[in-house]
């Protein structure tokens, strides 16, 4: 299959990304480069200097809302991608509304309690919509520990499932990028399995 055909197929779909930090910004860029038609982003944070060690932002964007900065960066890569940006904090009430119409939702939060809340909400309130989770990416090295696991048709995990990010074990570009790109790879795989005439059925 040629890339032009893959891109045209992916252009039909809408993907939700919950969080626009290390996982979300890098995953969004990989999906935009692949040609996924619409990306729904949400994040309430602004870009800080400390984020530049792993997140897809530039030093001149410090102080901007992450969603606004990421929308700008995606437009520079591929102006055909539609980016819908939300800046409200996600909760179990607004998640089904914000991600309505998405084929897949990528869990790209930093905090474990937010990860749990998002996954629980999508599984419970958006039946049939797969969630791609990032869990375990702190530190450096140990490439062999980072893996992909399909739990069932609606739950997929990327990461080492063991390291916890903190002051002495920071999240850094190489391993965050590996996990974010594995999440994007999973999204592409799921979307490529969907029928070409998806919206005409």
């Amino acid at each position, binding site marked *: 299959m040629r890339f032009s055909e893959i891109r045209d197929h992916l252009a039909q779909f809408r993907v939700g990304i919950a969080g626009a930090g290390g996982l979300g910004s890098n995953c969004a860029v990989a999906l935009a480069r692949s040609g996924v038609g619409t990306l729904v982003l949400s994040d309430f944070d602004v870009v800080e200097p400390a984020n530049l060690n792993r997140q897809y932002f530039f030093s001149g964007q410090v102080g901007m809302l992450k969603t606004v900065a990421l929308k700008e960066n995606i437009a520079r890569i591929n102006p055909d991608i539609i980016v819908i940006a939300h800046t409200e904090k996600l909760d179990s009430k607004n998640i089904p509304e914000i991600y309505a119409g998405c084929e897949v939702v990528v869990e790209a939060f930093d905090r474990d309690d937010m990860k749990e809340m998002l996954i629980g909400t999508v599984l419970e309130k958006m039946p049939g919509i797969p969630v791609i989770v990032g869990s375990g990416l702190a530190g450096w090295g140990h490439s062999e520990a980072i893996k992909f696991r399909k739990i069932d048709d609606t*739950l997929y995990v990327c990461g080492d499932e063991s*390291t916890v990010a903190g002051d002495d074990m920071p999240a850094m570009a190489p391993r965050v990028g590996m996990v974010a790109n594995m999440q994007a790879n999973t999204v592409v795989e799921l979307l490529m399995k969907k029928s070409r005439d998806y919206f005409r059925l």
Partner: protein
Amino acid sequence: MKILLNNREEEFGAGTLTVSEMLKQKKFSFRMRIIKINGVLIQKDMYDETYIREGDNVLMLYLMSGG
């Protein structure tokens, strides 16, 4: 009883046990997790009341901070 825990067979002494008891017996101590039994998501506040029975398929995922 025998159950499938993350696709591996596990044996427990009791005939049935709650999710909370299983977590305690296995010394699973991380706070943030997702548990599904036979494909159904188990809410955190139901761990004390939800029973695992012979042959159940239990899937568990730990959520580690970092992103």
